[in-house]
């Protein structure tokens, strides 16, 4: 009997377990693994046979499909006395060791059906926008620069500009408070915080949106939600995450025009992405602007708010693919 392998995080990865809920309901075999399991569970990789066995389960023989919902992360493995820089080095090199094992494990499972593919775990935002533009999608203008004078010139050309991290700036928790960087509009005050020369940074044209659309995409199917906010408000944030739980923010199910869908499908096929969470802006002039795709983005909240039941959809899709996958 085939089995689905789920690779996920130990906590704060909320998309995974509701899918597993449905796999349990359908009584379909699966195994969930988090990176910490590799430190606590019996692992055997037989290089001669090319087989991976975890806790007595031969993953090479049993698994047909791999549902990847994040896996690798840096672990703090050394908990002894503080050795200063040596402590950092121990942790860093222990993680390098573990990642090498994981890379080999992934290699031995590479012929399974991966969702998403290993090459798509993390994709470069600007490469995606470059590709999207070539396929005929509207995308914001952007520059990467280290110079404030070039930023000022760009701002002069496009009028409104945002700064956004190129890849990832996470959350920095300090007990009661957490710090993070969100998509940042470059107001006069924000510009004053930027020095003459700086770290290579991504700046984008700020598109004046009528509303934003969040799409969960799976194998050619679109589950779209429009995020409606009051048109004129002094409490409006550029980054929707800062307005998410406001009472004035409404999420409604949405149907994209077919021509936009077709271009997005083309883009996802070009990027070899079966699934992803996509952000789009609808402008007042009727145009749709593609912003970004996250191959392992979150979908639970829009699913719940718009009644899509995406975890059920994902589980049924995984079961069908897993059953039909020939090894």
């Amino acid at each position, binding site marked *: 009997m085939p089995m689905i392998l789920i690779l*996920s*995080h*130990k*906590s*704060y*990865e*909320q998309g*995974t*377990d*509701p899918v597993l*809920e*449905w796999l*349990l*309901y359908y009584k379909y075999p699966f*195994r*969930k*693994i988090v990176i910490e*399991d590799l430190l606590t569970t019996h692992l055997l990789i037989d290089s001669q046979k090319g087989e991976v066995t975890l*806790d007595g389960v031969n993953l090479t023989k049993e698994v047909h499909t791999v549902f990847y919902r994040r896996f690798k992360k840096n672990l703090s493995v050394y908990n002894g006395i503080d050795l200063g820089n040596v402590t950092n080095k121990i942790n860093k090199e222990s993680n390098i060791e573990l990642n090498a094992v994981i890379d080999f494990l992934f290699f031995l499972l590479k012929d399974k059906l991966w969702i998403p593919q290993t090459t798509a775990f993390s994709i470069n935002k600007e490469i995606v926008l470059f590709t999207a533009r070539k396929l005929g999608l509207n995308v914001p203008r952007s520059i990467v620069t280290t110079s404030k004078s070039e930023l000022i010139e760009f701002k002069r050309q496009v009028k409104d500009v945002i*700064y956004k*991290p*190129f890849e990832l*700036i996470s*959350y920095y928790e300090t*007990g*009661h*408070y*957490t*710090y*993070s*960087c*969100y998509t940042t*509009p470059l*107001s006069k*005050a*924000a510009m004053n*915080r930027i020095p003459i020369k700086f*770290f290579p*940074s991504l700046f984008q044209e*700020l598109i*004046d*949106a*009528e*509303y934003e659309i969040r799409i969960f995409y799976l194998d050619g199917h679109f589950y779209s939600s429009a995020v409606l*906010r009051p*048109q*004129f*408000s*002094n*409490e*409006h*944030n*550029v980054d929707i995450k*800062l307005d*998410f*739980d406001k009472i004035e923010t409404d999420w409604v199910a949405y149907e994209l025009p077919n021509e936009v869908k077709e271009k997005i499908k083309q883009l996802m096929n070009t990027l070899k992405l079966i699934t992803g969470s996509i952000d789009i802006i609808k402008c007042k002039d009727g145009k749709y602007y593609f912003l970004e795709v996250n191959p392992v983005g*979150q979908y*639970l*909240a829009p699913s*719940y708010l718009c009644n899509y039941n995406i975890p059920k959809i994902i589980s049924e899709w995984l079961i069908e693919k897993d059953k039909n996958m020939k090894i």
Partner: protein
Amino acid sequence: MAYRKRQKYEDLIAEKDLKNLPLAFRFLIRRETNTIGEMYSYVRFSTSKKLGTCSLNNYTDLTPISGIFISEEK
């Protein structure tokens, strides 16, 4: 849509230490930790061993269909 909200950015890191860091660290916004999870449904955690992993199992406020995740302990 007019974005008018004036944001307050936190000086978590001293200016002299920001030189080689991404600009993101000049635009940090502070929020109460228990409000983080924007765009996410709030989840509960259980340690149900049914999944055969050492991980915490996350489930939403809606009653899980299998009953499996209504656990044991947090």
